[in-house]
């Protein structure tokens, strides 16, 4: 596997609190899960995917975590067309 170079923009993941360490007032389903964080930054050393690494965030703060993504991106969208929306407003048009 090719090493990921120092300076690459990556995303890391860290367990903030294990289920046992979490707040006491959680609903049952949430209680079973660890409290997790993801954050993006520039790698401070060459590393492999899955390694424990350090990154410097965009404002220069240091964070430690497991390397999970190279060049993290956004792909959220407008979703699949919801046909039920299409006719709204055009119906009001007919009422005039």
């Amino acid at each position, binding site marked *: 596997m090719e090493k990921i170079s120092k300076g690459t923009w990556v995303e890391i993941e860290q367990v903030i609190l294990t289920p046992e360490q979490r707040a006491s007032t959680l609903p049952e389903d949430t209680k079973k899960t660890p409290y997790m964080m993801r*954050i*993006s930054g520039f790698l401070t050393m060459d590393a492999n995917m899955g390694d424990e690494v350090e990154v410097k965030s965009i404002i220069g*703060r240091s964070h430690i975590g497991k390397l999970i993504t190279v060049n993290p991106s956004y792909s*959220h969208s407008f979703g699949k067309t919801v046909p039920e929306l299409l006719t709204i407003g055009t119906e009001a048009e007919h009422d005039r």
Partner: protein
Amino acid sequence: MTAKDMSYAAVIARKNEIMKASMGIDYSDFVQSPIAFDYERMMRETGYSMDDIIQIQSEVKVGNTPLFELRNLTEAVRRISPKGKGALILVKDEAANASGSFKARRAALSAYEAKKKGFKGMVAATSGNYGVAVASQAVQRGLKAIIVQEVYDSRWVGQPEIIEKSRACEAYGAEVIKLTVGPELFYMQLRTLEETGFFNASLYTPFGIRGIETLGFEVAQQVRARYGKDPDAVCITHAGGGNLTGTARGLLVAGCKDTKIVACSVDLSGLHMASDHDFNRKSFTTGHTGFGVPFASWPDRVDVPRNAARSLRYMDEYHLVSQGEVFYMTELLTKLEGLERGPAGNTSLTAAVTLARQMDQDQIIVVQETEYTGAGKHHNSQLSFARENGIEVRRGDPKENIPGKTIVLPEHLDQVWGKAQDIDKLRRSYLTNASHVLPVDKWTESDIEFLAADIKKDAAWVKANLPE
């Protein structure tokens, strides 16, 4: 240097010292009893006049937003109303602020204050537009910003609206800490404040609320200039209470004493706010009852010792609307008025339709915000995401909406009714919460006066409605 204990309990226990260092406000100055505090003095001692705030906001592309007549919608409402009914509906296009929402007003004053006090950056814990506003304001004042966000469920699936907020915060150069579901968001906020020594740009500081006063003030001035009278009602989307509190205070500063203040939230009753399972079954991330009801009935449940957002102090009516009704109105705003705006900001628009139908044609109702829309935030994104998460989406009678199960888009404007909440019940619930802080038999006359002012009633009403 010994390492500090970073366990959940230890960090929460350091709350007061962290808060004091990160805000430069000593709340103990204002506290009068476990319940009462000098609210007006706390607001006054921010040290800013209305003119100061207007000036500060104008430096950073905030405020003076347009107020539009929604003529086609008003006409459509008149067609379904009794003769002579159908108030003129106006909307304040808050999407025109830098960062695309009214939240810029709150962030602008916090950023100015942070800079003035010599902080190097700001921290805010929010998944909403406020994070984007803090990021946008910080960059203009040469400050760093860290936004602590609840983004994902345990499958790493994020609500598209929140993903968009993450993106926007990063676009403005903020560090975004993306977390899974849980109230430990507050723990992370404290940890981050402690690590950085940054300013706590909480939504609930006096700065966060005073910044919104310009919104109410502008509404008063714009309506008066154009129509020669005060607005009859102002509809305000209600979650944590800041939007309502700040707007109502601004209207009062302008002298609009008879303007009715109407709160409106999306009804999400039955969904648990801290549930991993329910997290992605909400099609609204704010403006809903999961915040609106608890924050109205006890404001001091926030990340600051005393909340400057106190909605019952100013609220005259409280309407609930369904998710389907708001999505319907969002589409109608686009199609009838040529204005494509985000759905959450249209919560109060939905209540305005109901109110307008019952008001006379010569009356004026103001919807005091819009917000930007786009990928993730758009109502089509929300409905498409809901469908992918097993939620039924259909046209029909919005009364059949079941939060987390079914979203019913009305078939006709005539079906947009929402439902009015019993505000006295909320007031009594507030008094019950106060009795948990201090037992009723320990309430002094001045406590009772504070409580009365805090729910817009008099001392006699409080005494007649004492909790069991």
